[in-house]
Every structure is written in C-alpha cells, then in structure tokens.
C-alpha cells in the first residue's frame, strides 16, 4: 500500500448499472461490464458506505461534517454530532457541497484567459510573482493550518494579507476589540437564554454559526430541557428569515437600531441598578429620543427592559440588513446590552469565542482595489472571493483587477470574478481537500477528504507549499516539528493515504498540505506519547477539543466613543438581505439551492423585490407583478414582487446571491444582483461596508409575451396564511411550561363531534380496524416550534433520494420534485407576525387515502407501518396524489435527468424514476432497510435510529425525530404522547405516522381568531399579550377540543371579543 498514490486509492468501481429505460419493443440491451478493482483498498467494500469526518468549508462557521462515501464518491454530507459547532446538524449549504464537487461547470484545471494551463506553469508563474515581493492575498477568513501557513509565507515573502468576506463581521470584531480587547467575535450560546433579542442579525440562517444557533434555539424553546420557553423579540425594520420565528417584532426605522439597543441598555441598567461599567457610556444615551427616532414606543421598550433585567437573555447584534453607517455602534450597543444584562460567560462567550482568523475590513479592500487600479499592485491572489459580484458597481472592480499584472484567482469556475488576465487556480471543493479549522477558540476540527479530487485541482494549502518550495522561502514551518521517525510513520500509517518521498527543501519538509496539517496539529495540540493513535482518533472523530477556554472577567473599556444611535433614513431604502441558501452568491452554482423554494417567499430561481401590501398597492402591482428598482443610474429588473406583511411601508427589500452577469456556472445567471444598487460607503469606525443607505426608486414594469413567460415566477408556497385551517396549531407557552391543560389551535379547525355512547358500547368509528404492525411502526415527530424553516431537510432529502432538479420553467407549473414541502403561513400581522412553518411530507397513514385508490397496488401499507410506494409497478393514474389530503406526492411529469457530471452525485441506493411514475417520501426506506439488515435475525435494532432519515439527520434544530412507535420508550413515542402533539388534519382519521408538535406562542391566544377570519380583532396588540393581561381567559373548560360543542364555540367567540376590547383599552 505504501506506494499507492491518492488517485489509485479511490479508483472507481463501476458496478452502477445503466439507468436507461428499456422499452418493451426493442430486444436489444446494451452490454454492461463489471470493472473490479485492480488492487482493492482494505477499508472499501463495494456496495457498503464508508464515512469520513470532515469540516465544512463554505462559511466561517466551519461545522463538523460526516461524509458518506460510496464507490469512490461522496454521496451525502451530514453533520458531525461530536462537533460543538453544528452538534450534528448541517445546513443546506453544507449538504449541497457535492454539487460543487461534481458541478458540470467546474473548470477541469488551471486556466489562463480561457485556455487550460498546466499546474506546473501556473505554479511557476505564481512562485515567481510571490517571490518578486509586494504580492497581496485577498481572501476569505481562514483559521487553522492554512492561516498559519499563510502567515508563514507572508512573513517570508512580504506578502500582504487581506481577509474579507461579503456580509463579514468586521463591525462586530471591531466592537469586540474596542470594548473588551478580544480578537474575534463572541460566541453566542442561545440554549440558556429566556429572552432572545436580535437587531437584525439573521442568526438562525446565515449569520455567524447558524447551525449552532439553531441547536441552541431549539434547546431554549424546549420546556422539557430548561423548564422555560424562550421568548424571541426581534427589533428590525423588516421581518427577516430569522425574524419569522419571533414572538414580538418591534419595527424600527431603518438605521436606528443602535439607538434602540443603547436605550434598552440604559433602561435595563436603571432597572438592575448597575451598568456593569458602562455608566459613562450610558449616561450619554437619551432613551426617549432614540426610541422615538426608531419609531418604537418607549413603553414597549420598558416592558422589554423589565424582562431583560429579570431573566437570562441573549442579545444578537445587527445583521446585513441593518448594517448602516453606524454598524460598529450597533455591534457595540448589543455587546453593552449583553454586558448590562449579565450575559457574558453564560450565553455570550468571550473566552471560547468565535474565531475568524485575520479580519480585514471593506475599507481595506477598497484601498487595495484603488491601489490595483492605480497599478501599484503587481501581484494579487484572490482566494475564493467574488469581488466583482459582491462589491458595488461603482467601485469598478473589474477594471481595477484588469490593471493587475499578475492576477491569480482561486476558483472552481463559478462566480463573476474570472477576468481575462487572471490565472484561475481551481482548489476543488472541501470534500476533496485536506485541511482544518479552529471555528471556536480552543476547538480544532480536521477536514478530511471524502474522495479523490474529481478534477485536476490543488488546494490553497498545497499551492502555497509548492510556491514556498519553488520560491525557496525559508519559513518556520510546522513540518520542522514533526520530528523523528515515530511521528512521520504515524502520519503515513493512518492508512488514509500514503505520502510520497519527502523532498529536501531547506527547513521545510511538508511536501503536501496533509502533512502540513498533521505537523501543525502535532505541534500545537498533541501532548501525549502515541501520535499515531491520537491522530487516528482525531480523524475518526473529526476534531479535537482542547481544554475549554476560561471565560475572562469582562471589563468594558471605559474609553468608548460617544454612542451613535443613528438616524432614520429618509426616502425609500433598499433593505438588502442575504438569501437563506445562496448567501453572498458563493453557492449560486449549486442548482439544488435555487431549486429548493426560498423558505419565506417560496420563490425559486429568481430575485424578487419584497414590499409591504400598502407599497405594492401604491405601485399598482400584486404578487404576480414585476418592478424595476433603480438607484444612481443602475437599474435592476424586472424583479418579481413579493408582498409581505413583514415589510415596512415604502421600503423595498431584495435578497442577495442571484444574478451573476458573467457567471461561470449555468445555474448562476438567474435573477439580478442587488449589490449593484449599493453605493460604496463604509462605517468610519470599523470600515465595514454599508448595506443600508441606498435610496432607491421602484417602478412598476409591465411585461408581455415572451418576457412575461420568462419572468413569470410562481411562489411554491400556496396560500399566504392558513385560511383558518388547522395546519399548524399553536399552544400558549406559559400554559405549557406550567403544565396546565393545553388547548391546541384555540378552536381552530374542525370539531369532530363524537358520541360517547358509541365508545361505551364498544363500537368503533372506523369501518375497518387499524392495520397490524407486528414489529415496527415507523413514525416521525416534527417540532413546528423549533423548526426555523431553514430548508436543510429539503436539500438533504433531495440529495439522499435522487430527487431531480426541474428548473424554473417547470416550477412555473409547480413541478418541484422535492418530497418535503416546507409550507410557510403568515398568520399574524404587525407586532406579532406569527409565521408558522409546516413540513408537509408523506404522513405514512395507516388508513391512507392514497392506497385504496391505486388500481395496481403500487402503493400499500406494509407491516412496518410504511406507506410503501413501488415505483416500477406504478402506471401513473395519479389518483393517489389527488386523494392525498396532505398533497405529499410528486409525479414525474417528464423523465428528468441530471446534467453531465451531476449523475455522479446520485445515491446508488436509490433508483431514479422515469416519466409517469409517482414518488413520495418513504422515510428513507434504503436507510431503514440497512439498519434492519444489520440487525437481522434480531428485530431489535442495534443502533439508535432517532436521526435515521436524511431530514432528521441534518435538521440543525433537531426538530425532526424518527423512531419506532411500537417501542414504548423511543423518543418518537414519547413525543407523540406529548400534549403538544397532534396529527395533521386529524379529523380525517387517516391515522398518520407523522406527528407534529404545536408551535408555542407567547401571545395570549384569542378564540375569536379561529372563527373570525384570521385577520380580525385578534392581532396587532402584542403588548397586551404577556403575563398579567388576559390571564383570566379561558384555561379551564377546554379539556378536549374534540368534544367542543356549539356552546363552547360561542364561548370562544366571547373570549375573543372580550380580549379585543381589553386590548383597545390598553
């Protein structure tokens, strides 16, 4: 084995059969071959998966991941339960990483000016340029070994380092540095917070470490864990994706959030009687003035401050949408508020803080680009950034880059930044790279490749090492410390892949980045005797946690700048927000992330302009309309319109990520790029980019003919609200915590009147008994309270089950093939948006309406409680889908295929479906079959199946739990017994295998809502919701909603009216 190289190791075993459809009339079939290994690797068994622990490289969170490897390729990415960031969850971006690796538009190797060049030439040019001095590295935030290597190379060659990302954290980093003197930004631990307050950060989805935050959020919302249900207050101009989960939305005028945070800090300090060292700062705060500038009633802030003073809380700073000219002040104010509330050390960590490596600012980048344009930058190396796409048009980035004589861009071919004069260096995806990360101070994670590089690629680390070698840079290398035969042996005997001969470079022995990483770890982290054993454990577990960092005593720097609360922006402001899946556009080349409907708007493959109903009415457009948004001579459009109740009047919000103009990937060119509308401006304190200042004009665009067809987009979320149907039921959180009788849905839905005499007589309402499930009854429990609508389940399901991508034309006809339909219902209005997410999947009914109507028994109920779907028996009458009350079935309208390259990412355990076949969620039957097979001949499974299905495996908030309902002590059975648990449309009595846990609300429910059309008196008075007011309202007497009679219905009405009048008085 010692002499094998890395490619041979992963030599593909080609036993996958042809997927072609064999029609009956042609007797010919292609001859298929079996290609066995020449030399079979010991750990690979063809047909069985191998798992590799790794670390996601797509954003700064660097969550731990587990790659499932089959026959030479990674087929699934899941979270690593051992990783403290992520805790087993994975986000849509990490899961879709296979689409980066197998992307059909991935460049095959290094290129210059569109021509392929060899790595030798490219590296020679790079070495020459770097050793010539005055090189600049412009790249993403990097931690771990790569950060160290970059530092070493920079020190040896005089290379300048600029680390910046769009939607970066320079304001928070500056504020942290300013206030407490730490390098890095705090780590937010939501789990212990009773009150969660956010000023616009999209912390559940795109901000900092969303997967980590989601896990914490789920813990804070689960009363069984902490005995409380956290209350989430969002202070932001627009209800962001994270804001949809809030219990209270205080609408701030854009640009004034810092003032609100300062005002709150002052109020809390007053209530607590201690400002924790922020006295002088807060003495300069005029709370009333700041509140009125923000357009928020001071009394409401006072109520909030009372709660913050009383209970543990967590305060998130601003996000991209609220990143104005005083963004550092907003970050500072949030830190001060956390300080005043006493959150440091409990929910906000400075010791084990989030590590971003070197953080440069947008101002630094602008300065660099100016230098480029001036011709003073001779060599620029861009590390997986897309400055042309992510920086405002006015900066003329493309021109600046063209003026650089030696331009090197690490890119896999996607994005707009591939100028003619650049040498493109494909680093490959993180699935194919060695590396590591230190996402949290003191916690180290290893990045292990799950497969051989699919293209002729070379990671940044390898490139830097090669450059160092040929430029003969003498650097204090980590490899020096890998001394002695023992450790050298250890690294090579890990059996993951073998090392070649170490070339003799003076003072530098690491011939590739793998060896460098190992050396780095040996140097920094390894303390014991047996490096080999330790290293194997590191690789198996995916990382290593050093002793937890001590939380420091927090002391605020007394000399802080005077608080700048910001002023409300005049005119129509562009509220720029990050797309939940596409982030700043770096993942726009992954079709699956466009394909999955945007969690809130439901739009796919497009960019839209979000506006309030009043604004839309003023423009004369509706949800089918189009607008053009213009600013400073730049026009963006036609954009689809999304009318949202979570938008302030007058302003317009546009998501990032779409609309590459010159994109290298065929999937990037949809929609429009709102960054082009932004004016270049920076926060004077931190130099962070200003996203919030652009005044825009919005005009209606009338399209016709082919244009209308092209831009016609349908939101894959049907109705804006639940239309009074009992889809997502709610429960009053304080009742749940106190263990009172919980009434789900508050009178919403259908009351099934049951005659007690029937049961007394021993008769059944069912015509037929429930089918028997001798051993298993697979079930799923979905917590709709902790579900944040992030869409990870959808992406994972599509990846696991080979769900085809159908594209925008088919989406116009709702032919999205994903088995999960993540519904979003905007139930509330104003201060209580009450947005409810529902994960509609096959409910695996025991009395399934679909089964009885199938003429050929292609779908039936099996002994494990599954609603089985046998694809090759299906004729395609589609009757089952009509008859499914949950609309959970998908039909193959065409034989959808994958573009060349993408077929490699298919899961070999799942068949692809041809046209005319019905499909649906099967609870990942291939995984169930696997665990059952493993256990045979026993029926008691040998492994824990709580996260068996793909959706449950990745769910960052752990909202999805799978299990056997026949086992009394399985998690899913226990959840099903919870008073919060209900079956979707339970009155249909289809005896579902899927149970939902109700959404918890901190708003005292009104029974009037259920009958009053949903928009009546019940809304817009969240101030009257918590605690005392309305405590006398009906808790008793609703023991069983199912027994509700006419009289009780009226009773509900009365409560609604009573409460409405209370609220008015208030």
């Amino acid at each position, binding site marked *: 084995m010692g002499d094998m190289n890395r490619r041979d190791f992963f030599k593909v075993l080609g036993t996958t059969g042809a997927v072609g459809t064999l029609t009956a009339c042609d007797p010919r079939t292609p001859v298929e071959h079996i290609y066995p290994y020449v030399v079979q690797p010991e750990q690979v068994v063809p047909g069985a998966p191998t798992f590799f622990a790794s670390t996601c490289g797509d954003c700064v969170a660097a969550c731990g991941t587990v790659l499932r490897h089959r026959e030479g390729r990674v087929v699934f990415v899941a979270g690593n339960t051992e990783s403290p960031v992520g805790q087993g969850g994975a986000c849509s971006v990490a899961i879709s990483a296979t689409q980066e690796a197998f992307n059909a538009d991935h460049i095959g190797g290094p290129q210059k000016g569109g021509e392929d060049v060899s790595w030798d030439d490219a590296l020679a040019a790079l070495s020459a340029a770097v050793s010539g001095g005055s090189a600049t590295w412009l790249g993403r935030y990097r931690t771990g070994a790569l950060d160290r290597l970059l530092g070493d190379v920079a020190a040896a060659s005089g290379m300048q380092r600029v680390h910046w990302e769009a939607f970066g954290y320079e304001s928070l980093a500056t504020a942290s540095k300013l206030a407490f003197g730490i390098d890095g930004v705090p780590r937010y631990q939501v789990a212990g917070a009773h009150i969660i307050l956010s000023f616009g950060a999209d912390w559940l989805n795109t901000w900092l470490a969303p997967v980590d935050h989601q896990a914490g959020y789920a813990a804070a919302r689960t009363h069984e864990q902490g005995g409380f249900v956290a209350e989430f207050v969002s202070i932001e101009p627009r209800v962001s994706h994270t804001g949809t989960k809030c219990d209270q939305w205080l609408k701030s005028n854009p640009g004034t959030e810092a003032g609100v945070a300062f005002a709150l800090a002052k109020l809390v300090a007053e209530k607590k009687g201690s400002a924790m060292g922020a006295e002088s700062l807060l003495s300069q705060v005029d709370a009333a003035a700041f509140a009125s500038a923000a357009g928020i009633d001071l009394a409401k802030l006072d109520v909030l401050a009372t709660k913050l003073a009383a209970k543990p809380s967590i305060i998130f700073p601003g996000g991209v949408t609220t990143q104005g000219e005083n963004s550092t002040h907003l970050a500072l104010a949030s830190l001060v508020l956390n300080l005043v509330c006493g959150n440091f050390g409990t929910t906000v960590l400075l010791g084990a803080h989030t590590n971003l490596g070197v953080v440069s600012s947008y101002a630094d980048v602008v300065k660099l680009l100016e230098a480029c344009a001036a011709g003073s930058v001779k060599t620029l190396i861009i590390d997986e950034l897309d400055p042309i796409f992510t920086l405002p048009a006015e900066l003329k980035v493309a021109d600046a880059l063209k003026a650089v004589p030696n331009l090197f861009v690490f890119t896999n071919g996607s994005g707009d930044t591939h100028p003619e004069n650049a040498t493109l260096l494909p680093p490959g995806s993180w699935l194919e790279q060695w590396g590591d990360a230190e996402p949290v101070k003191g916690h180290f994670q290893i990045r292990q490749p799950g497969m051989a590089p699919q293209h002729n690629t070379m990671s940044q680390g390898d490139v830097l090492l090669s450059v160092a070698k040929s430029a003969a840079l003498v650097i204090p290398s980590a490899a020096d410390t890998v001394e002695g035969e023992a450790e050298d042996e250890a690294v090579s005997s890990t059996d993951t892949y073998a090392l070649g001969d170490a070339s003799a470079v003076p003072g530098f022995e690491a011939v590739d980045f793998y060896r460098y990483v190992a050396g780095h770890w040996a140097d920094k982290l390894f303390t014991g005797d047996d490096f080999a054993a330790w290293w194997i454990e590191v690789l198996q577990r995916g990382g290593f946690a050093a002793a937890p960092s001590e939380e420091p005593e927090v002391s605020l720097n007394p000399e802080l700048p005077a608080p700048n609360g910001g002023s409300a922006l005049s005119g129509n402001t562009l509220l720029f927000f990050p797309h939940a899946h596409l982030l700043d556009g770096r993942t726009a080349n992954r079709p699956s992330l466009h394909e999955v409907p945007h969690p809130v708007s439901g739009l796919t493959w497009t960019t839209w302009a979000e506006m309030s109903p009043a604004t839309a009415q003023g423009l004369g457009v509706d949800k089918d309309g189009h607008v053009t948004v213009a600013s400073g001579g730049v026009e963006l459009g036609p954009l689809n319109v999304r009318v949202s109740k979570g938008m302030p009047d007058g302003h317009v919000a546009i998501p990032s990520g779409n609309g590459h103009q010159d994109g290298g990937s065929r999937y990037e060119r949809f929609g429009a790029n709102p960054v082009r509308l932004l004016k270049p401006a920076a926060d004077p304190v931190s130099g962070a980019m200003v996203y919030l200042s652009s005044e825009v004009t919005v005009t209606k665009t009338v399209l016709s003919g082919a244009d209308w067809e092209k831009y016609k987009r349908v939101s894959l*979320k*049907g109705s804006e609200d639940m239309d009074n149907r009992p889809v997502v039921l709610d429960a009053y959180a304080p009742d749940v915590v106190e263990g009172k009788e919980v009434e789900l849905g508050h009178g919403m839905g259908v009351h099934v009147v049951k005659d007690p005499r029937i049961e007394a007589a021993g008769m059944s309402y069912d015509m037929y008994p429930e089918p028997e499930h001798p051993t298993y009854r697979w079930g799923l429990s979905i917590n709709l309270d902790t579900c944040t609508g992030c869409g990870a389940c959808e992406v994972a399901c599509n990846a696991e089950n080979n769900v085809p991508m159908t594209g925008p034309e088919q989406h116009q*006809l709702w032919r999205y093939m994903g088995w999960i339909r993540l519904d979003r219902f905007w139930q509330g209005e104003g201060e209580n948006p009450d947005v409810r997410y*529902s994960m509609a999947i096959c409910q695996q009914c025991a009395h399934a309406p679909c089964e009885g109507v199938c003429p050929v*028994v292609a779908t039936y109920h099996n002994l494990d409680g599954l609603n089985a779907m046998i694809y090759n028996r299906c004729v395609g009458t*589609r009757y089952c889908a*009509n008859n499914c*009350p949950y609309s959970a079935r998908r039909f193959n309208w*065409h034989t959808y295929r994958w573009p060349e390259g993408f077929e490699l990412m298919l899961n070999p355990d799942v068949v692809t479906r041809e046209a005319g076949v019905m499909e649906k969620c099967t609870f990942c039957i291939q995984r169930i079959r696997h665990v059952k097979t493993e256990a045979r001949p026993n029926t008691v499974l040998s492994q824990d199946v709580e996260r068996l299905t793909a959706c449950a495996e990745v769910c960052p908030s752990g909202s999805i739990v799978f299990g056997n309902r026949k086992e009394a002590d399985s998690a899913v059975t226990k959840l099903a017994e919870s008073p919060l648990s209900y079956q979707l449309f339970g009155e249909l009595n289809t005896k579902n295998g899927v149970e939902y846990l109700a959404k918890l609300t901190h708003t005292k429910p009104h029974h009037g809502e259920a009958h009053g059309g949903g928009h009546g008196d019940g809304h817009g008075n969240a101030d009257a919701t918590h605690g005392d007011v309305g405590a006398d309202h009906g808790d008793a007497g609703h023991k069983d909603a199912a027994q509700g009679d006419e009289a009780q219905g009226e009773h509900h009405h009365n409560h609604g009216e009573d409460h409405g009048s209370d609220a008015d008085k208030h």
Partner: protein
Amino acid sequence: MQNENAVTYGLVNKEVIEPLFKPSLAWAAIFAVDLLILAFGVYCWSYQLEWGMGVAGYTPPVFWGVYITTFVFWVGIGHAGTLISAILYLFRARFRTGVYRAAEAMTIFAVLSAGLFPNIHVGRLWYVYFLFPYPNQRLLWPNFKSPLVWDVFAISTYLTISSVFFFVGLIPDIAAVRDSNRNPIIKKVYNMLCFGWRGTDTQWRHYMAAYGFFAALCTPLVVSVHSAVSWDFAMAQTAGWHSTIFPPYFVAGAIFSGCAMVITLLVPITKIFKWENYLNILHFEAMAKLCLLTGFILTYSYIIEHFIGWYSDNPYEWGIFVDRATGQYDWIFFMMVACNCVIPLVWWFKKVRTNLWGLWLVSIVINIGMWFERYNIIASSLAHQFDPGAWVLYVPSWVEIGIMVGSFAWFFMWFLLFVKLMPAIAIAEIKEMIKPPLSTDTEEAA
C-alpha cells in the same frame, strides 16, 4: 308515427337505405376536415408520449385535468344511447324507435372516445395492461378495491354489452341493406356482417327473447356505469368530491348531456336525410322534456351540494364551494350554471322546444355546460385541496386542448362513417310501429 298509415314497409326500407353509400361532396369535405383535426389530435398524443405527461398543463396537486374531464364528458354522452334503447324499450316508449339506433351508435362512439382518455391520461401507457386482471408469473393482480379498477370493469363491460346490443339490433337491418343492394361486394360483406340473417321464425323467436334480456341487462348497467365513474370522485377524500350525492347527480347529468347530444346530432341528420317521417319534432320535444327533467335534478344537486358544504361547517368542504363560485375558476362555475341551469329553461316555452333551431342551439349549450361542469368539479377541487400550502392554478396546455378536440374528431369520424354505412334508423322496429298490412285493408280499399 304521425302519418303511419302513409308509411309502408317498403317505403321504410327505401327511405332509410337510400342515403347510404353515396358520399356527397359535403360529406366528403366534412369527413376530410374531421380527419385533419383527428390527425392533429394524434400528433398531440404522440408528442405527449415522446416528452412525457409534462407537456400537459398539470400543476400539482392538480393531477387530473382536461383528460379526465373529457373522459367523464364522453362517458356521460355515452349514457343517452343505452338509456334510450334499453330503458325506453322496456317501458315501450313509442318515441324511442326513431331515435334509438343513432343514439346507440352515439353511445358506442362516445364510449370509444371515452375509452381513449384513461390511456392518454396515464403516465406510463406502456404498462396500462397492469390494470386488467390477467394471470402472470409475478402473481400480481389489480386492486379490486380501487374505484379505477371498478372503472375498468364498468367501462369495458359497458362498451362490450352496448356494442353487442347495438350490433344485435343492427343484424336484421344489415340484412335489409344487403337485400336492397346490387353491388356483389357489398352484398357479400353485408351478408357476412349480418351472419346471413334471413328473418326465419326461429331466428326472430330467439332474437327477440335475447333482445329483451339485453335491454334488461343494459338498464342497470346504464345506471351503474356513471355511478362507477362518479365513485372515482365520491370515493376520494378530496373536498368537493367526497359526497354521497354523486352517483345520482352524475347519472342525471349524463342523461342530460346525452339527450342533448342526441338532439345535436339528429337535428341535422333528419334535415339532411329527409327523415321527417321517422324523426320529427315530437321526438325532439320528448328528448327536450327529458333534458328539462334531468336538468332540474342537476340544478337541485348543485344547490344541495353547496348547501351541505355550508351546513356541514366543514372548512374544507365549504372552502371549496366558495372557491368554485368566487375564486380563480369563477368563470367556469358561471359557464356551468348558465349553460346547465339557466339557458335550458327556455325549453319551458313550447315555441322554443318545438323549433329545430331552438332545440339545436340549446342542446349545444348544454354540451358545453356539461363539459365545464366536469372541469369545475375536477380542477377546482384539486387546485384548492386541504392544505393551503399547496393551492395552485391549473391552466390546460395546447396539447390537452388538441387531444380533446381530436377526440371530438374521433367521435365524429365514426359517426360520419356510421351514417353512410349503416341504417341509422331501425328499419325492423319502425315497421313494428306501423300497422301491419292485412288482407282486410286491401279489401276495404278496394
């Protein structure tokens, strides 16, 4: 027979058989246009087979659309024929005789058209044989609990028995055509077609007994077929479909549309072939009255359906009926009510229902209305299902419309061929209506 004394056995043969075999230029032109439209329909279907069902406008969760709408429409049309020939035969309704042959032919061709649609509609036509019970090595059988298998049984039984009934009725008349024609080839062919029928006493004896049994068998079949079709909907859980009223409602609607189609077809034929002796305003008026009756049952069903939707206090049921009347498909609902409930009321005026124009135009309106009724039931219910997260708008594509129009061409192709090749009026039965020639008559005349 208004003037049955003037009509003799010989005259019946002459008048009914005369228009056969001589295609006029007009007939040929209409037939050519018809074939062109049919060819377009065939093209649409092959286009769909090649590219997949997706070329139709299906918008999930609307999984059924124009094809099933047209299927139900044709099955409905197919009702009148057997109803007229079988039930009215048993009731000895006199006006049946002139109408029934053409009506029965219409039934067969309508069922032939209807039978195409399940095939057009299924996703994998090449596996459609899975729906039939046949022994196979896989030991797999259809699901006899599925309404679609009931459909397979009902439609194929209906087609078989109606065809047999139709053909048995034709045997003596084919013999008459054979005897009146001099062309040896036609003679030979028609002799084979009528199995050498000569009208012997034994033949007539068993024939008449069997014909009675066919009528008796067809009568429940007529009711059962559209009930089975209605169960496709009524047995489903979907709101707006799941209703016990469906079988009688569908049967009434089927008779309504079927009788209207008979009027639509026979008015021009009567004029063109000059068959006023056998088919005249009295027949059409009787058909119109039947339409008025069934139209009222239909209107009542609409009202009851909506009332129950409201009275049940079931948000899904009521939601669907409100949506049908006021939602995205309101114009379809309007078409349905206008064409089926309001416009046919003009037949209350004797002037209108005894005027051929009045009969013909209103009958076409009814046919349009009945198509929209099925569209209204199918598309609107599916576009507005239980889960509000999956509410959509379904608009048919040109492929669907092409195939639908093609099915009309298919139907008319058979009908046009029929009127030129087979006696469209039952010669033998018309003779039964005529007073038989008796020696006493001659004596009197003398």
